[in-house]
């Protein structure tokens, strides 16, 4: 008698396996970019403008060059290739010449024998500036008499969306004005990298980034080198959150390495990190919501202004997102949305987790609560009544085709257990009062409040951008059995994509040993680790490459079988024919099998002049309920609990999904309560962890999360990206709870103690909403000026040597419609 147990492959998708990189990270042996070291290495430094807007009259580098131990100082004239770069538009100088446009802009770089010499040498470079009038207010920037940041003006992009009849009558209208501050990603690992000159005249750059190939696309032209001579390798990344989408020290270190012929490391300290990366856009938002008596939304009108700072970065895409998500995850039959991103002389803003959706979620959720109050309805019920679902039409005319379990997300969140009631005044643990033991009160004026918010986010790039991901998989055998090698350029930034890719390879190939090879530009582009896209995109590429490997292996197996018909499967290291083992996988691997595939998401279409199109590939939704306690006398807050429900399609690694929800919530809590990069006259005033506060373990409440799993059609395993939705809703939910506790309007984040204690009135707009700028849109303005960098070209790169048995390595594997 035999009991047959089907072989299983351990460590596949759906299991919360230990992360592939957790052990070295816990031991402290994992090398981050700032830990890199090379024999004979120099330390690079950067001299930055102290002025938001000035003309450079002259730069005297003689003092620095005379300093012992200084090996090079470079200025704009030393940049051998293109003088400007940029993620979407090349409007940012590698080193400023003639003019500086923000305080913190690099004007000179150098390299010295040790970090201390480098610091002192930087202080000896004398720049003579003629200070010019600066525009540092986003509304001022739109005035005709404002100083111009660029020759072509201060409008970066204007998005205009008209849907249905924006003048449709409604029974009830509510109106509000909202502001969000500048938030910083504040990844714990500062920007760093090591550039090593190569014998072929090129450079090898080891760097912490979110997208190796787009970095190279910007770096190589500035170095005056062909792309193949600029080889990028991913160094350990200490968090990213959007801060590493733009270049920081990449070109500078490469220039210095090429000039000195020695390895050059640049590692920012915390203060320079605040100056050296883009931030979350501050926003001013005016909204009007109209509804019928029964609570059905009739119309939303929104005017959005975001400050892009001195250079474009990803502002055009951010305002595209803010505008297309302005109405929230609701069915809105009539809408008028005008969103403008402007240039100012403030430090550049760009990508941060949530990417434009955070700011508008804060506004549209406040509006939904206002509407509920005006109608005398329950705020959760009002959201349910208007919730988007599959087949809903968005204000852009886009039909929601994928899964959209908005109602399920709202219900699951609302049903999560509430925390225990607050103890009576004076009875609680003093450590649990807002402000902790330092609180001078004993809970006499404690008010509890509950708030709710729903939001959503696009997954992957939008508006016609084909951000494909390539991956190569090789299945081979050694003495220990079969092993799958996964080669992908996807940047692991802490979110866990390498673990997910290993799980996918296990599931698809039935082997437990998987090696994730170091990401570099020697394989095709994986696209960016942003927009919650890598699980879907690089996951899809690895799944497709594994499928191709499997088919090639099966062809081999069938050739060796007497009875080759039947269903072949791989599991537990075995090849199975109709469920019966025919031999170990390794037995068919005298020769390795290899395949490379490229995954494309469902195509999207750009917006037209009326904001109509099909801008987004897929959506992920989340709801959070916050419970807070406010000490009304002191204006202090303790968040008691966050309940979160998130639409994840399918959880490939449940523990990591929860980790993303918890970590994303922490960043949303930061924006709600404490995080603000303070600018005065264009200068950052709090560039340190002493003055820019991020949540500590004492600030974070327990996060209770529920995963809503409704598979996304066409996506690998139905999984959706999970990184951003929690950040988007957390801020809105927490402020809603603060309003519930205090009855105050609280229309600006972060909320300050003064706002809660009633010492400061709600913010009011200094002027009415500016009219839409003339003659721009829907294309970003720098586009018309020929500054586009053409990221699409990344996909036209030649196929790579060694693409294995795949005859058409660039054959498209398209997701979405499943065709």
């Amino acid at each position: 008698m035999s009991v047959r147990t089907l072989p299983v492959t351990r460590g596949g998708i759906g299991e919360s396996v230990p992360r592939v990189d957790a052990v070295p990270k816990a031991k402290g042996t994992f090398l981050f970019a700032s830990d890199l070291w090379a024999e004979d290495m120099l330390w690079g430094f950067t001299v930055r403008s102290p002025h938001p807007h000035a003309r450079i009259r002259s730069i005297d580098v003689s003092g620095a060059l005379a300093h012992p131990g200084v090996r090079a100082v470079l200025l704009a004239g030393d940049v051998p290739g293109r003088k400007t770069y940029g993620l979407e538009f090349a409007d940012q100088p590698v080193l400023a010449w003639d003019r500086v446009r923000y305080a913190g802009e690099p004007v000179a770089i150098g390299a010295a024998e040790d970090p201390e010499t480098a610091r002192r040498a930087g202080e000896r470079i004398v720049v003579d500036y003629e200070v010019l009038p600066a525009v540092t207010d986003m509304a001022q920037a739109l005035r005709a008499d404002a100083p111009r940041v660029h020759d072509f003006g201060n409008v970066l992009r204007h998005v205009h969306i008209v849907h249905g009849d924006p003048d449709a009558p409604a029974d009830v209208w509510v109106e509000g004005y909202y502001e969000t501050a500048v938030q910083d990603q504040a990844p714990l690992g500062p920007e760093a990298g090591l550039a090593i000159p190569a014998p072929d005249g090129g450079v090898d750059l080891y760097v912490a980034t979110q997208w190796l190939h787009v970095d190279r696309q910007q770096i190589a032209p500035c170095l005056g080198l062909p792309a193949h001579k600029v080889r990028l390798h991913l160094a350990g990344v200490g968090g990213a959150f959007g801060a590493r989408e733009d270049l920081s020290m990449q070109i500078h270190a490469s220039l210095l390495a090429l000039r000195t012929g020695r390895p050059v490391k640049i590692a920012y300290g915390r203060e320079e990190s605040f100056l050296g990366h883009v931030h979350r856009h501050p926003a001013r938002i005016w909204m009007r919501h109209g509804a019928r008596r029964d609570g059905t939304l009739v119309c939303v009108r929104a005017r959005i202004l975001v400050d892009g700072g001195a250079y474009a970065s990803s502002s055009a895409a951010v305002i595209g997102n803010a505008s297309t998500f302005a109405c929230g995850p609701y069915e809105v039959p009539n809408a008028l949305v005008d969103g403008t991103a402007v240039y100012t002389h403030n430090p550049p803003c760009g990508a941060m987790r949530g990417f434009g959706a955070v700011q508008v979620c804060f506004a549209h959720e406040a509006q939904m609560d206002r509407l509920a109050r005006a109608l005398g309805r329950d705020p959760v019920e009002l959201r349910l009544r208007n919730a988007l679902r599959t087949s809903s039409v968005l204000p852009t005319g886009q039909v929601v085709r994928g899964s959209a379990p908005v109602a399920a997300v709202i219900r699951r969140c609302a049903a999560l257990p509430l925390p225990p009631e607050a103890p009576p005044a004076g009875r609680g643990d003093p450590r649990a009062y807002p402000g902790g033991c330092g609180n001078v009160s004993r809970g006499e004026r404690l008010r509890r409040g509950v708030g709710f918010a729903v939001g959503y986010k696009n997954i992957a790039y939008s508006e016609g951008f084909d951000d494909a991901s390539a991956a190569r998989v090789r299945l081979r055998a050694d003495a220990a059995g079969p092993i799958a090698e996964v080669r992908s350029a996807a940047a692991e930034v802490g979110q866990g994509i390498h673990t997910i890719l290993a799980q996918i390879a296990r599931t698809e190939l039935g082997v437990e040993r998987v090696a994730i090879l170091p990401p570099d530009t020697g394989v095709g582009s994986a696209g960016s680790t942003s927009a919650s896209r890598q699980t879907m995109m690089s996951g899809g590429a690895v799944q497709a490459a594994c499928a191709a490997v499997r088919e090639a292996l099966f062809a081999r197996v069938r050739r060796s079988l007497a009875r080759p018909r039947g269903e072949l499967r791989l599991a537990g290291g075995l090849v199975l024919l109709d469920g019966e083992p025919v031999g170990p996988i390794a037995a068919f691997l005298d020769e390795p099998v290899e395949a490379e595939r490229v995954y494309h998401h469902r195509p999207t279409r750009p917006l037209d002049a009326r904001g109509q199109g099909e801008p987004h590939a897929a959506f992920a939704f989340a709801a959070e309920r916050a419970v807070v306690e406010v000490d009304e006398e002191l204006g202090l807050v303790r968040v008691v609990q966050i309940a979160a429900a998130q639409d994840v399609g399918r959880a490939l690694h449940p523990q990591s999904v929860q980790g993303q929800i918890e970590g994303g919530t922490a960043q949303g809590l930061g924006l709600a309560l404490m995080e603000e990069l303070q600018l005065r006259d264009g200068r950052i005033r709090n560039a340190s962890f002493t003055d820019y506060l991020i949540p500590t373990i004492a600030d974070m409440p327990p996060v209770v999360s529920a995963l809503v799993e409704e598979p996304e059609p066409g996506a690998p395993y139905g999984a959706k990206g999970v990184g951003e939705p929690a950040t988007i809703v957390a801020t809105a939910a927490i402020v809603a709870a603060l309003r519930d506790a205090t009855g105050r309007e609280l229309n600006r984040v972060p909320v300050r103690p003064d706002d809660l204690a009633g010492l400061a009135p709600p913010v009011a707009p200094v002027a009415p909403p500016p009219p839409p700028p003339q003659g721009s849109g829907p294309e970003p303005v720098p586009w018309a000026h020929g500054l586009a960098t053409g990221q699409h070209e990344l996909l036209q790169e030649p196929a790579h040597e060694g693409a294995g048995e795949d005859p058409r390595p660039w054959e498209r594997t398209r997701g979405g419609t499943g065709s």
Partner: protein
Amino acid sequence: MRVRVRVNGAWRTAEVWPGASLLALLRDALGLCGSKNACEQGECGSCSVWLDGELVCACLVLAAQADGREVRTVEGLTTGEDLHPVQRAFVEAGAVQCGFCTPGFVVAVVDLLSRDPDPDEPRIREALSGNLCRCTGYQKILDAVRLAASKLGGSSP
């Protein structure tokens, strides 16, 4: 200037600038990069080490102050492939994301559990409030501390 420090049991000598921090000594002169440098201002705890058995931020101690004294870093917790029970708990609980904060947290948690083998939640939060993590939201770090405390069974690590 020349400093001589006993690091993880072995005497090490290095030439450093008089203003150099203990963190710079460890990372740049001795190549011990397990201690991280997220702020160099005493705000983040990523550089946590023991100086004569006392938990300190290595960025706030001058290398010169450590001269002739005993320093223990995250690298000194285990040898070879072994994991300290606190490190294992971080791995199992999912408390590691980017990992930049992890060595500092591990050191702080080992220190906490050596003094209080069974800390309650407010105690854990208080003890770790000097360590910043930007990725995890701290929930799984709390889980890891509880897991480590139970693994260690109250015996000092």
